[in-house]
């Protein structure tokens, strides 16, 4: 059922685009079109479709818990009902709730409920554990622009890191990005944090693609060391701009029905210019972010999020005005020159400026503690005179994160009709002393701290010391 929906949606998108191309090429008859032109225009935009399907779950009713719904609301003594894999109801009272007779009932007194945690910046699968050279699949550092590579073709679905992110971090969705060695690193993929035999089995249905870009030190260092462009920040921009000019020409040709062959790199960039693929831009310094915003206007695309963004606090006004999220750490600092001006008040100052804050990990350990990182940033903000309520801080790793990767209509908050992605915490998730007790994905209970068998163990860990341990 789900599969069919996805395929249908994919077909619809392809048709819509084909229609556009056909319109602008009206002067051509079908007879005159070469097979190559057709192939370049009517290609399958979803050739590796998601085969993920929600696992069966029982209707579940939690009562008496403190609920942070992800939209900035806090409900004390709250009620949450999952049914049919979806959030069915969230509120403060039992009245009007249609609770199935066989629903699992959980006494949530003293416990907390949040939407499933979302990490917008992970390299799980592309830099999996064990981190041996044979597993280093995150950076195609043979060309400064590789929009043609897709992270999903590198993801190893047996990375043991997925299980830690679920059990300790309550992570239910995550964006896997290529690394930052290239200016244009390739397409990201959004996954449900559910183990599968194939990466297609983990893909978040209908999630938009992202494209990774990177500012600053990394691309110029990697290619400068190879004696080729770019070796400077101005080289970074020159290569980017030249590539966008090509992409615009490609897109114009495509729309005019004049493409003679397919170009995987250009297809991705044209998808960005179409607004279908979101730009996820690794960028530390404020001045570079400002330049990127102008480059985006020049080329005709939108930056969805700046990742790492340690200097975002210097340009909160600009980021708000351009509706760009800053995906940041709480306090990573000083490990490289462009991170030297990081401050632990970054999130707080951005919040004060009214800009979008997302807490991200970029790390297989950090992804297990996004809640704590957000809490750390909240504490630093408070000491700087910026008081931010818990229910707002929760948004930084739920609803805001969903928005930054384009899945906010499906997940990221506990609102009726959304996916049943949810965490029951054994205490306030903004306390260092709290951990997930249960985690549901699409209404299916996939982690339960009280059930030794209700935790995933990847193929890699079978037969090794520590198989199935608490981790």
């Amino acid at each position, binding site marked *: 059922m789900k599969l069919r929906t996805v395929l249908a949606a994919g077909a619809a998108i392809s048709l819509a685009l084909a229609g556009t191309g056909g319109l602008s090429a009206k002067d051509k008859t079908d007879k005159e079109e070469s097979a190559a032109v057709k192939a370049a225009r009517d290609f399958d935009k979803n050739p590796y479709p998601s085969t993920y399907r929600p696992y069966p779950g029982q209707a579940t009713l939690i009562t008496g818990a403190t609920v942070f719904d992800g939209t900035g609301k806090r409900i004390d003594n709250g009620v949450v009902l999952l049914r049919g894999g979806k959030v069915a109801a969230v509120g403060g009272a039992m009245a009007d709730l249609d609770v199935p007779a066989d629903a699992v009932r959980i006494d949530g007194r003293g416990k907390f409920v949040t939407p499933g945690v979302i990490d917008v910046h992970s390299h799980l699968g592309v830099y999996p554990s064990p981190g041996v050279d044979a597993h280093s699949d995150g950076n195609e550092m043979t060309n400064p622009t590789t929009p043609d590579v897709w992270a999903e073709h590198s993801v190893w679905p047996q990375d043991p890191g997925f299980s830690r992110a679920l059990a300790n971090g309550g992570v239910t969705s995550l964006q896997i990005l290529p690394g930052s060695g290239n200016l244009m690193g390739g397409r990201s993929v959004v996954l449900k944090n559910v183990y599968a035999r194939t990466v297609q089995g983990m893909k978040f249905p209908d999630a938009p693609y992202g494209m990774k870009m990177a500012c600053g030190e990394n691309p110029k260092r990697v290619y400068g060391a190879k004696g080729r462009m770019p070796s400077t920040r101005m080289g970074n921009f020159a290569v980017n701009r030249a590539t966008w000019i090509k992409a615009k020409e490609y897109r114009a040709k495509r729309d005019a029905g004049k493409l003679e062959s397919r170009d995987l790199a250009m297809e991705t960039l044209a998808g960005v210019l179409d607004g279908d693929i979101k730009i996820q831009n690794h960028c530390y310094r404020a001045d570079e972010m400002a330049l990127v915003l102008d480059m985006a206007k020049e080329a005709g695309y939108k930056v969805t999020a700046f990742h790492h963004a340690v200097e975002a606090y210097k340009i909160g006004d600009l980021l708000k005005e351009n509706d760009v999220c800053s995906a940041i750490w709480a306090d990573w600092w000083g490990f490289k020159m462009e991170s030297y001006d990081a401050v632990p008040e970054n999130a707080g100052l951005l919040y004060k400026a009214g800009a979008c804050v997302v807490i991200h990990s970029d790390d297989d350990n950090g992804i297990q503690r996004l809640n704590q990182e957000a809490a750390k940033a909240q504490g630093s903000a408070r000491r700087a005179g910026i008081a931010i309520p818990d229910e707002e801080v929760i948004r930084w790793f739920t609803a805001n994160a969903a928005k930054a990767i384009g899945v906010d209509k499906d997940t990221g908050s506990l609102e009726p009709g959304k996916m049943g992605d949810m965490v029951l915490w054994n205490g306030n998730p903004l306390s260092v002393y709290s951990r997930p007790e249960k985690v549901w994905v699409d209404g299916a209970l996939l982690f339960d701290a009280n059930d030794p068998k209700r935790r995933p163990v990847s193929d890699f860990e079978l037969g090794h*010391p520590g198989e199935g341990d608490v981790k």
Partner: protein
Amino acid sequence: MIARTALGALAALLSGTAAQAQDMAITGGRVVIGDGSAPIEGGTVVIRAGKVVAAGAGVAVPPGVAVLDAKGKWVTPGLVVAVTDLGLVDVGAVDDSNDSGAGKAPFNAALDISAAINPAAQPVAVARANGVTRAAVAPLGTGAIFEGQGAVIDTGSDPKAVTAPRAFQYVELGEDGARLAGGSRVAAYAVLKNALDEAREIALAPAGARRDDVLLTRRDAAALVPVVTGRQPLYVHVERAADIRMALALKGDYPALKLVLVGASEGWLAAREIAAAGVPVLATPLNDLPSRFEQLAATQSNVGRMAAGGVRVALGAYGGNSPAVAQYAGNLVALTKVPRATGLSWDKAFAAISSGPAEAMGMGDRFGSLRAGRAGDVVIWDGDPLDVRSGVVKVFIDGVEQSLGNHQSRLKDRYQTVPEGSLPKAYDW
């Protein structure tokens, strides 16, 4: 106001005159001694001549000392981080500013890290502002299994940073040691034993001629004499349970060795042997991924299980400069509420980042707790120090109040308001 304070701190720094230790009593706070005992409500800490005189409940305030009211606050010993690059690095990826490794040096065991300590480095200032007052600084990244001699430092803003130079020797065994020794653990053990034997020969005949087939420079071999004679601890980086057992077995051939295990991700699998050997462990706290084949059994319960097995375990080997020491300890407390997991009680978790590492360094009588006679390293917090939302209010080192200002705090002050005013941001300082 803020600008004036910063100027004052700057002037003090430039003139090189350290502030004087002040005799004082800190009263009314929730006092954590740091030795694994429970916090004391409304306790008093008395500091005189830079040292703790008394701390606890019912401690009288001596006449004539300044009284600092810490009501509603937490008062603890300064945090101790072991095996870090604090003071060796300004920016990790800026090679010119990074003295943590010396891959092309002609020496290894002889390298003495104390020569490179820079108390003015920003990572030191940031660590101080996060409650860290002492550190075991290790050289890492030489071209040999012996990384050289580490130092114990304080994080004070005065020029005298080194508490103890040449406080330990550091050796890589396990996967890193194998790579450095030529490709295998077999080679690492051959190199290690040869080096200790060469040191022994020098110890027996300090001025004597050396064999023709020595592999170490005289300087490197001589630097290992205090190790092989047990006067200087040997920090051994190992992760795999089998490597831990091999390291412990070194005491069979070299009985005087004072071993300290570093890392020990699979320590829980060898807890009985480690405890029996009485060897302290500086464990990386939250490793729970099979990041390498030598840590397939990594789990966050490692520290708790070792402690429960009688191992003298403290936290260390964090790497990087993220000021997350207290957060790690807090996570170990969180495990006590997780079914089947093993963590540490709050009291033991705090000790694991204060007196624990100090004792592993062999310096528990000098700092790391608020027991009488220890250095006056005191931190006052605005809440539970292990909770990530709490922050540091004041820091004293050897009884001297420290500046909490640094590059980060100055940037924060400047950008409290984002747009420029009547002058560019560069004039706002």
